[in-house]
């Protein structure tokens, strides 16, 4: 992954997000605790802000908001998938042994960046009957617990994730 210089907007956004989290955690809005929060957020941004920024992107604020909105939209869809996953596992847990058809599926993805692959792998882990076991390059090794869930690995998730970052 080529390394681009991170802009100061990146660091400002990281600082802002951390400060928001601090206010939620702290719940104290007096000057003493808020100034402690400013110091702490500055320290964390300085120590490990580059982790949150990642490879550094030169996107404008509007594009980021669009991404965030699409990401939240995706999360909603994913949560619904997780509910389905649990119902499936719940049924399987009480099903007779013949209903279990565990096997390994290989899936090739077109997603390239680490973040996209991370999202895909974790989404697969959380959705019906499939667990990502390993990732080699663009190949995902997936353990599926029955045929129905294995058929669910058909690239729809890839498209949705690619849509977030397009």
């Amino acid at each position, binding site marked *: 992954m080529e390394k681009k210089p991170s802009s100061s907007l990146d660091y400002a956004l990281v600082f802002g997000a951390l400060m928001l989290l601090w206010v939620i955690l702290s*719940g104290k809005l007096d000057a003493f605790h808020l100034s402690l929060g400013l110091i702490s957020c500055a320290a964390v941004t300085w120590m490990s802000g580059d982790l949150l920024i990642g490879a550094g992107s030169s996107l404008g604020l509007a594009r980021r908001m669009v991404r965030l909105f699409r990401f939240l939209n995706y999360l909603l869809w994913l949560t619904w998938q997780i509910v389905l996953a649990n119902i499936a596992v719940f049924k399987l847990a009480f099903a007779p042994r013949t209903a279990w058809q565990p096997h390994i599926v290989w899936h*090739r993805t077109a997603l390239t960046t680490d973040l996209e692959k991370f999202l895909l792998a974790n989404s697969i882990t959380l959705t019906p009957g499939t667990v990502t076991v390993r990732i*080699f*390059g*663009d*190949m995902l090794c997936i353990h599926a617990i029955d045929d129905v869930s294995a058929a669910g690995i058909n690239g729809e998730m890839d498209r949705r994730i690619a849509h977030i970052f397009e």
Partner: protein
Amino acid sequence: MTFEHFSIGVGVALLLLMIPAMCRIVMGPTTMDRIVGANMVGTKTTVLLVIIGVIFGKVDMFIDFALTYALLNFTGAIAAARYLRHKGRRGIVLASTSEESVCERA
């Protein structure tokens, strides 16, 4: 029945439902099974801490405990995974032969 009574009931039910995971910790058969069971118990302990907070009426305090516990549980699981993948009998052999060829060609 107040919500506090209900919370106590939920806590007891959680404790009872932890028993299968505990059985998995005791029965094994492999180390990884035990770790998965322990991880499951750990996640539920996070919930249990929140419930204790609700019962005592000090949720804001117990959420900090729960968050800390969740963080330590996560770190423990990752550390166990890291440690065992190096100890494992398949880790080293496969990595030097077939996995690399998969990476190159894929």
